[in-house]
């Protein structure tokens, strides 16, 4: 599903983002990316969503070779990804249902199909009753649920979440995490960047820890090594 092979990324200003990073995330996996600010989490996510290109190495996401991605292919890649950010990034002058329907509209979905798909996904995130409300009238946790609903409405095989609980209190954080777990339970790959180690602990999910642009720990590798006879 997502494969990084010896990927390095140096930004035009000379800052090193990633150094020789390799990992593979198969279908259905839930992966935490952890590490301090500047460790390389955001670099990995921006490579996955096609915002940046690798300086060297190969990145493949849902079959797209990202090093050779043309500008015209970027929208096609993005439609195969659900993307959620710490700051929600909702359009504040549109209602909840319009925010979600918008993600369908831009992909050219049939107009008649939009309302039912929006309600379905709003029910999934537990906000069916808030369809006509504007984002400002919602709590942070609810706004993040709307953002997740928007990310899910196109049924993407991969959900990318960049610090999705960074702006939320403990209770809302738990709620969002449970929602992401449910989504993953349906077979969607979830890649979540976070520095909330309390959240990561004891979940049993794969953890990739980054430091200075390199992977310093990958529980996936450890598990694979442990499984060997």
């Amino acid at each position, binding site marked *: 599903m997502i494969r990084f092979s010896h990927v390095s990324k140096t930004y035009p200003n000379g800052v090193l983002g990633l150094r020789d990073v390799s990992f593979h995330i198969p279908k259905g996996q839930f992966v935490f990316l952890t590490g301090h600010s500047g460790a390389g989490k955001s670099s990995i996510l921006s490579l996955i*969503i096609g915002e940046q290109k690798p300086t060297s190495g190969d990145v493949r996401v849902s079959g797209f070779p990202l090093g050779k991605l043309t500008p015209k292919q970027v929208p096609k890649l993005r*439609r195969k990804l659900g993307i959620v950010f710490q700051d929600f*990034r909702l359009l504040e*002058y549109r209602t909840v249902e319009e925010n979600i329907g918008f993600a369908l509209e*831009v*992909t050219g979905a049939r107009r008649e199909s939009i309302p039912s798909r929006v309600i379905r996904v709003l029910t999934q995130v537990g906000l069916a009753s808030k369809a006509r409300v504007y984002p400002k009238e919602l709590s942070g946790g609810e706004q993040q649920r709307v953002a997740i609903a*928007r990310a899910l409405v196109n049924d993407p095989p991969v959900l990318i979440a960049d610090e999705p609980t960074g702006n939320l209190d403990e209770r809302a954080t738990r709620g969002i995490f449970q929602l992401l777990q449910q989504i993953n339970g349906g077979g969607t790959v979830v890649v979540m960047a976070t520095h909330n180690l309390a959240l990561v602990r004891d979940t049993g999910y794969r953890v990739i820890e980054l430091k200075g642009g390199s992977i310093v720990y990958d529980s996936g590798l450890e598990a694979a090594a442990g499984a060997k006879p």
Partner: protein
Amino acid sequence: MSEALRTFRRTPLLSVLSIASIGFSLFTIGLFGLVALNFRETLSGIAERVEVVAFVLRGTPTEAVTAASQDIQAFPEVLEVRYVSAEEALSRARAELVEFQEAYRDLESNPLPASIEIRLKPEFRDGASAQRVAERVRVFSFVDDVRYGRDWVERLDRLRDMAGVIGLVIGLAFAVVAIVIIGVTIRITVLQRAGEISIMRLVGATNEYIRGPFLIEGVVKGILGGLLAVLMCWATFVLFRKSTDLGASLVFFEPLHLALIVVFGTAIGLMGSLLSVGRHLRHV
């Protein structure tokens, strides 16, 4: 279209500001155009008086003059040829030169010569053409002298050349200023919507999809700005006509000119959006 309308509803102040800035920029161009148009009209009014007069030697038979007149009429520069007899010249002088009425009344013989008045076609009312015609007319044996007001015709030529150059420079400067102002206004709109554009891109919108509403918005603002400019030009023209003595002699734009203002507004609205959104799409 609904996206573009949504922007108008959501940011009415910014939308009104951009329409006003397009309107006022085009209005300055329009005003300048009006001044230039009226100046040109005045100049061509003066130029109408550019004519060549050939004085005929006393005693020349009328037939000879008539035949020559026909030849002159065939010159490519000539619009009209008129023979003014000595008697007609005298009665005209009596009527026009009131101060000399007394002097002319007591004359025993007519001191004024007969003449041929040659009016030129509008495109030939300049010094060089008048001189060319004068030289050709001078060849006729019965022609005593040829006059075409050389000094003032040449001065008129210089004035026309200068007005053309100054008009072009100032007009271009106004157009550049208008385009810059409009570009900045549209850029502000785009920056204000940068967040929205990045969200559109995140959910997989193509550049064409994102650009569409901005282009419609640019075109609509351009049209409205153009119409506003036309309205302001008309209002200024009416006010000016009422408040000065020049009133009746002033001319306003033809419908074609007005359409051009609106088309120009539309074009800059479209270009402005295309450039500023295009630049932004490459950077997000």
